[in-house]
């Protein structure tokens, strides 16, 4: 099949590649760019394991064609750490609050939470739960993911994080 040239900015670097028109963005990211942190869990936009940040929006890269991302600015989980290489507030929150187990949903979850906190820097528990409803987790039951996002929000806002009592 004839290939199309695409260029985009991924995690701050200009990238380019030749893709088929039908090549999914997730496959371009994982296979052409070898950024394997973005995962595939369902291929039908339900699970959110493939979530990336595209031009300031959370999108599920399993149902976006690579050609549709031409010229866009993308951040994947590999672009989430602080500039000095330390864990970001969200990454640290997930570790501190035991917000992950098998780790398969985690990249999508963190990328989504990153955008959620940009949209709403101080979300309530209900807003967090609604805000991550496009991302499925089979291991944690979400309770500690909610705490992880609250932890990160507090850290980013410079407020004190208080873990809710059971």
């Amino acid at each position, binding site marked *: 099949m004839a290939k199309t040239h695409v260029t985009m900015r991924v995690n701050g670097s200009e990238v380019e590649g030749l893709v088929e028109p039908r090549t999914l963005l997730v496959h371009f990211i994982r296979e052409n760019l*070898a950024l394997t942190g973005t*995962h595939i*869990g369902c291929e*039908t936009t339900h699970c959110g394991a493939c979530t990336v940040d595209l031009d300031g929006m959370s999108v599920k890269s399993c149902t976006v064609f690579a050609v549709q991302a031409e010229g866009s600015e993308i951040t994947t989980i*590999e672009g989430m750490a602080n500039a000095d290489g330390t864990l970001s507030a969200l990454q640290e929150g997930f*570790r501190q609050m035991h917000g992950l187990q*098998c780790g398969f949903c985690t990249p999508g979850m963190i990328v989504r939470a990153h955008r959620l906190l940009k949209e709403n820097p101080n979300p309530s528990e209900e807003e967090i739960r*609604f805000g991550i409803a496009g991302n499925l987790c*089979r291991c944690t039951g979400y309770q500690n993911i909610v705490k992880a996002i609250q932890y990160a929000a507090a850290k980013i806002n410079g407020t004190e994080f208080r873990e809710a009592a059971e």
Partner: protein
Amino acid sequence: MNDMTITRAEREAKLEGMGCKRKRVEDIRFTQGKGNYVDDVKLPGMLHGDFVRSPHPHARIKSIDKEKALKVPGVLAVLTAEDLKGVNLAWMPTLAGDVQMVLADGKVLFQNQEVAFVVATDRYAADDGINAVEVEYEALPVLVDPFHAMDPDAPVLREDLAGKTEGAHGPRRHHNHIFEWTVGDRDLTDAAFRKAEVTIKEMISYHRTHPSPLETCQCLCSFDKVKGELTIYGTFQAPHVIRTVVALIAKIPEHKIHVIAPDIGGGFGNKVGAYPGYICAAVASIVTGRPVKWVEDRIENLCATSFARDYHMTTEIAATKEGKVTGLRVHVLADHGAFDACADPSKWPAGFFNIVTGSYDFPTAHLAVDGVYTNKAPGGVAYRCSFRVTEAAYCIERAMDILAQKLGMDPAELRLKNFIRQEQFPYHSALGWEYDSGDYHTAMKKMMEVVDYAGLRREQAEKRAAFQRGETREIMGLGISFFTEIVGAGPSKNCDILGIAMFDSCEIRLHPTGAGIARMGTKSQGQGHETTWAQIIATEIGIPADDIMVEEGNTDTAPYGLGTYGSRSTPVAGAAIAMAARKVKAKAQMIAAYRLEVHEDDLEWDIDGFRVKGLPEKFLGMKDICWIAYNAPPPGMEPGLEAVSYYDPPNMTYPFGAYLCVMDIDVDTGVYKVRRFYALDDCGTRINPMIIEGQVHGGLTEAFAIAMGQEIRYDENGNVVTGSFMDFFLPTAVETPHWETDFTVTPSPHHPIGAKGVGESPNVGGVPAFSNAVNDAFSFLGSTHIQMPHDFWRNWQAAKTLGAV
């Protein structure tokens, strides 16, 4: 040597040993997208394989034409059963003693069965190839309902078994019968029912569902023709078993098979068995001489690899009118689908379902299980449970509520009256198990106190009265579940997989500078073994957990073990760790005695080293002992400090718990709200409370899904109607309730550190709590049992049937 300025508490804290909420070491890579899952592994020249699958649930294959597919750009090969016959792999053995088609041989027996395997340069080309393979089918009558599987005129599904009246587990009564398994004393139980003052009988179904980990099943096979070696990367919960099975069926010497299970994105039982994809990828690699990857998509995962449950349990309890149980009789009709690929220890055709007497002191019981074939996918895996224990717990916990209702007793009171008492442990159950330890009354009473059970019942009575006065349309249910699990398969005397005894293993090697590596026969899929195993070692031998690397999943380096499922890792491998650590410690003690110039018996262990009794300043720490062990061992002693332990447990372990679900249901819409869920777990000694709590949260969420809507459903024509995440219920953060966790600690007396295992308890105990809550809510309207799953629509149907709408 010993820095006396550091307090004992500081030394202890530095170890991050057992009981500490140690943060997970795995998270550093997982939070940065640096995990290494199977689909992340790429090898030079790698090809992709994908399946042509049957649209028919039962059909004869008249022809398969691969010509067009072979002309598709990028397609290199198309394998069919005929090709696999050349290497004697058209069929493969199942874990349950049956055989299963790898690729359809003459006919298909379930929808989405594997028919041909297309190998191409990338996944898109493989998909093009699939669409170009032409298969001609002749549809056959379909058998969906297991209750009609043994009708005289039921369609013959397994033509390969024609004339075989004996299966792997005894006689077969019908062409669609797989086995009958009976346990217990039938005569004594029948007598108990004849004498009973009160009896109940109910057909309790546990519907078909699916473990559905977020990462599907996948593998990458690479055959090196020059060396004659096969390397398999795969999502394997039991890598060594896979290696042995491949050696046995593919006739490749076992030392030339390298099985690597890298990071696994959840398992929940789905990744225990062997699937056609593994065989086809291996054969394709041998045929093409290039690495071949197979990655299941979600629809394939839900429709073809390993369902769970599908048990239909006719349950009877005999009791006195005071509510003392006197007998239990259960008949199970087990729908195994087209092949018996149940992932149970080989001698247990219904797993450990004979734990069905639960937490209660039944003087006698009898159980019979009939397994049947239908036109559905094979499987029968332990979806986050020990083998068939969820089904058993659901059966008895639902039945106890039904009995309470008949007696007009409170279900909590009925349970307290019939619990096995603390002084009865070790307790021998009527169906053959020896329960190791338990304190059920304490756990139950703690639960009732914390939730104010009496207050909740008063509130329920008020709400019911208000409903009957027409003042509210909401009904309230309290769902109690008091489960006893049986985990830790298992003693090799009664547990094996295809003849492989179910021990587990640990090898600990300490390095000269006082750090070390532990290699395991288990394989984490999210349980956090890299974190918790090091904690056991830290406590046992005084090396900080941070200085111990835990490695799993590579069969070339790991000691042989049976893997991770059925909550067996802590009961079996956790014990192996302690035993290996104690061997290391015994040698360390000899070294310390030599260095401190005393007899070994004059030493005592003190957190992270040995001290001469009565002389606190004479101390030698483990870090120093490591250096000495390599560089200056006592005369005549071999250098080095390492040990391996293969642990064959003397018994299973029996975790238990008391759960309560408080639910409100709107009868006009069927919409429910879980107002409160309290889970008290007793898993014996607690290694990492943070991880235990996380396991409980996750297991409860899966239980919630199963009880309230998650189902693999077939229509009457054998079509899967819940084959994607659009229809198969996986709760999001919005639906998922808030979880309250609690615990008691009753150590296992036979386990070296007293731990029992916890990962699956919340799924086992959670499902009956949800279902009992729904049933309890509707009971005052005259119902005794409403089948799961209790989604909004079914709740509304129940309300209509009971005249509430």
